């Protein structure tokens, strides 16, 4: 509202009781709305609002795991190559070395024979093997007259 308009309105209000009453009722209505809104603004928990904002900022800052690993090296591309190539080579070597150890079938003696082979061109051979007694005997028979009897 311009100043001449304001002068005109104020002059009219002095002369017109109807408009004065209308203005009065509008002012009371404005006060009625203004007070609760201001109170609500005053009561607003700003720290909570800040926390919310901060959380949003952090979630945007969170990097992917790959980018995280990549940044871990934090080196120039040339140096990165110098570090990565030996690291990858060592890792591959480790995998190759450990894989057979991890995946090989572990031998446990109950399922296996203790004697893998026996060869003798001059003697007859007897193998006696028992699991309970934890004993394996390879017996050489020197000849019919020298054989030892077994119980």
């Amino acid at each position, binding site marked *: 509202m311009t100043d001449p308009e304001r002068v005109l309105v104020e002059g009219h209000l002095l002369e017109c009781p109807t408009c004065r009453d209308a203005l009065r009722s509008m002012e009371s209505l404005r006060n009625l709305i203004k007070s609760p809104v201001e109170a609500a603004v005053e009561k607003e928990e700003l720290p909570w609002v800040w926390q919310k904002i901060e959380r949003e900022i952090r979630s945007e800052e969170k990097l992917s795991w790959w980018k995280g690993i990549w940044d*871990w*090296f934090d*080196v120039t591309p040339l140096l990165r190559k110098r*570090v990565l190539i*030996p*690291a990858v080579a*060592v*890792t591959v*070597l*480790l995998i190759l*070395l*450990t894989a057979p*150890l991890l995946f090989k079938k*572990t*031998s*446990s*003696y109950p399922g*296996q*024979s*203790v*004697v*893998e*082979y*026996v*060869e*003798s*061109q*001059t*003697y007859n*051979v007897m193998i*006696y093997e028992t699991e309970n*007694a*934890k*004993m*394996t*005997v*390879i*017996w*050489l*028979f*020197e000849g019919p007259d*020298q054989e*030892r*009897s*077994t*119980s």
Partner: protein
Amino acid sequence: MRRAVFLIIPVFILFILSASIVFAQVQTRIRVVEASNVGSNIDSSLRDVTGQLGSLFSFSSYRLLRDETVTLSPNRPLSIPVHPGRSLELTLIRQRRHTAEVRVQIKREGTDILDTQVRLFPGRTVSIGGPKHGQGTLLIALSASF
């Protein structure tokens, strides 16, 4: 610093793994025994062996002739004289977590009279017997610890 650690740790693990393969060794106890029916003496250090053999053989005497613990390395034959003219040759073929595969050769005047390969488990004895010795019989008890 972080890069150095990243490289040192795998190299260290690699070294440990390689060392365990290259330096695999098996402690093997060899007991040479004369078993006979002359007398009834049993050497106290042979109680474990005689306890096992007692159910199989009827010898009354077990005399310890030699008790030796040797360290076997992969593919390095180790020869031990067990009797005049006879020797025992042991070769560690390979070692696994709970077994050691050992080639055992008994030689008489340089010629193999027995060639066998056995798996040695901790706590289990492999005995080789039969050849005549004096008034009794020669027994060789092999056991491993690793």
